[in-house]
């Protein structure tokens, strides 16, 4: 008989081992899935994990892409992880990402074509405010009426998507675009363009912001009483209340920070790699960041690594679609497996497996 037995204290080594095992198990299960689809499994795994970085043919294109994709994932996931640690579930980062992009791009488009050296910083601020405001809706509803922030934040994603398409075909549409949906391209508006800082590396200000966020979150969680209170509220809410943590203030803080970071990520994207507001601007970063946050153990450094890994599966996945004509759904299933296996292996940090010799009575 196989039983799970609760460990007296969570296992440290399993906490670190679980993500690695999850990646390994995903590779194996993914390989089986690709084989069942009639593709060479080894080649598929190599295309996803190896070629984006090391292939002489694609490397020069996909290496910068890695940072371009990882930047927003990490930035959003860092924000989400603070709330997740405290047991505050902002599932709507995608919506905050969109609203941040709309606010920041809206500011730039309103000032177009004025050249202003501080325009990009102002846009970043506007983007952060946009995301923050969108996250405040579930935050305030939760603190005032005790609504469920998971549902409210999630549903607001769909509202944000509607506003996005309204903007793309309506109030932010490029007046010189010949009636096509989509705004002016900010890449051709120098003051507003979030350009690469070092050419052909993929490093733009959003990537820098993501790194700063990683460091700031690390310091907050390790050294500051606020970070301690976030962790305490997640571990034992009643104990946090006894410690003097004001639950409402904590909810607003965590929702606010995650919304602001998601909004910033949206702004960096729209002013940089994406260039313009378009109907399909929301690319799912806000949802994938949830996986990144958990894959990274809600730890800033873990999130940094998990963001890079997730970006790799994105780019590798695209490559596999292109080279091996794997269906896009297979790639999504592959990414989903990663979270699934992580949660499965996670059980072992709290429980140990016992194979009991069930003695017959």
């Amino acid at each position, binding site marked *: 008989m196989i039983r799970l037995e609760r460990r007296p*204290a969570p296992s440290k080594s399993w906490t670190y081992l679980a993500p690695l095992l999850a990646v390994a198990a995903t590779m194996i299960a993914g390989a089986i899935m690709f084989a069942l689809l009639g593709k060479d499994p080894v080649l598929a795994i190599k295309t996803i994990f190896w070629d984006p970085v090391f292939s002489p043919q694609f490397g020069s294109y996909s290496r910068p892409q890695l940072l371009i994709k990882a930047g927003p994932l990490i930035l959003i996931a860092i924000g989400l992880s603070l709330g997740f640690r405290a047991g505050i579930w902002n599932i709507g980062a995608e919506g905050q990402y969109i609203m941040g992009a709309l606010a920041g791009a809206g500011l730039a488009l309103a000032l177009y074509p004025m050249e202003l050296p501080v325009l990009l910083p102002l846009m970043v601020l506007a983007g952060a405010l946009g995301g923050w405001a969108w996250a405040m809706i579930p935050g305030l509803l939760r603190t005032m009426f005790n609504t469920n922030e998971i549902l409210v934040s999630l549903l607001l994603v769909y509202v944000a998507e509607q506003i996005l398409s309204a903007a793309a075909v309506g109030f932010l549409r490029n007046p010189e675009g010949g009636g096509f949906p989509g705004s002016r391209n900010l890449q051709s508006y120098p003051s507003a363009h979030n350009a690469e800082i070092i050419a052909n590396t993929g490093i733009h200000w959003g990537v820098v912001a993501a790194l700063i966020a990683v460091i700031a979150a690390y310091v907050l969680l390790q050294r500051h*009483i606020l970070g301690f209170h976030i962790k*305490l509220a997640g571990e*034992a809410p009643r*104990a946090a*209340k006894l*410690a*003097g943590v004001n639950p409402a203030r904590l909810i607003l803080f965590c929702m606010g920070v995650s919304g602001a970071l998601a909004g910033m990520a949206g702004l960096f994207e729209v002013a940089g790699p994406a260039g313009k507001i378009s109907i399909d601007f929301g690319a799912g970063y806000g949802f994938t960041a949830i996986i990144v946050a958990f894959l990274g153990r809600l730890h800033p450094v873990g999130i940094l690594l998990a963001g890079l890994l997730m970006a790799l599966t994105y780019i590798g996945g695209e490559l596999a679609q292109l080279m091996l004509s794997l269906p896009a759904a297979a790639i999504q299933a592959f990414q989903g497996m990663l979270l699934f296996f992580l949660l499965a292996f996670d059980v072992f940090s709290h429980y140990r497996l016992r194979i009991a010799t069930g003695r017959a009575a």
Partner: protein
Amino acid sequence: MTSTDDLLVIEGVTKAYPGVVANSDVSFRIRKGEVHALLGENGAGKSTLVKTIYGLVTPDAGTMVLDGLRYAPSEPSAARQAGVAMVFQHFSLFDALTVAENIALGMETPPKRRVLARQIREVSEAYGLPLSPHRRVGDLSAGERQRVEIVRCLLQDPRLLIMDEPTSVLTPQEVEILFRTLRQLSSEGTAILYISHKLDEIRAICDTATILRHGKVVGDCVPSQTSARDMAEMMVAAKLDTPVKHPGTPGAEVLSVDGLSLPAASQFGTALKEIGFSVAKGEILGIGGVAGNGQDELFAVLSGETRTAPDAVTFDGRPVGRLGPHERRAIGILSAPEERLGHAAAPDMSLTDNALMTAALRMKLAPGGWIDWAGVKGYAETVIKAFDVRTPGAHTAAGALSGGNLQKFVVGREVMQAPQLLIVNQPTWGVDAAAAAHIRKALIKLAEDGAAVIAISQDLDELMEISDRITAICDGRMVRPRPAQGLTMNDLGLMLGGRDPEEEAVA
């Protein structure tokens, strides 16, 4: 060697869990119709042993013989069929169902509802445990709920009844009723295995006692011929050092609660009604009461977790009803709640983290918000040392400590911050005798040094031992505090029932 008198013979029962041997070569016998006490500190292995007898745990080694037949129940239903019944410390009853429905749920083949109701009435009357089968369990008192559990067992006509800490939720008067029932059962030939910390009770009711320590049988005795102190010392294998209270002259009044009323926060909460009392410097005020009569609500009001009208609570002449726990700590009001895991401490966090939890402000462990981890660790180690907390180190998770050790840490963490007023809820609940003595001594010392202490406790002996004045809370109302000196158990019983012994005497 099995005599026909023996009902249950246990031979060499051993059960090991990872890292701890719960029972090691335990042997003893229970005779037919005797009340047999199982004594031991927390973690001595009592629970594991009775779970083995009741079929919840399969031992690694050893045998049991019930009435001459080999007995190895694989699950509780097998134990029940063999005639072994158990009343747990924590009841497993559904509040929304009636007494009869609850009892039917626990039976393999329940009879028709009407027949069952008649049986319940018959059994409960025969054993002096009045119980109406049609009442909803949610409306019953703790004592009545226990009757439901006992009647449920009695309907199965058991040969051995196991009772785990049965009196912890009862008033002294209810304890008397229970003891009458147990004596009657025993005279009819039912053996009773009685588990309790309370040595006076064991002396009053048990015929023999088996004493466990660290999973082993370390002795047995006839309780009626052994002093409570001797039994306690057998349990802990050490000389017990009972704290002595020196009644001092109380100082100036430091905290007063006036006209405090608070509606119940939830359906199963208790409303506080017109509560008023005060505490003076250097005084320990004991608040007794049966669990669930408003203690938790009152604690939350005093700790600041629940806020009230500003002048419902005044401290040093200043209204503090609106202040939260953090602000109260700043002016010297500290508190240690009852529930250790999840309220007083975060179980998965280290002792260092848990030290920071409530001591950050007063011990200046996070100046300007930046945590001084070396200082926090130092403070945790100071508490561990001063309160003799047995742990591998400050890095250990709080949840990995035994109840007694964690309680010492939790109380120590507050006491070492030199409070003006300390509120403790159930200071030694589920804590072994040695740790309890340590904690009580610390509270007495704190009061001698001039602090005011409010101790909310269900343990009447504890209240008598440490308090200067005692009051009780019943259904959200508080009776008038009275000096502890000269109070009898009978007075206390009346107070727990919400009555004032003096007025009763006049009436």
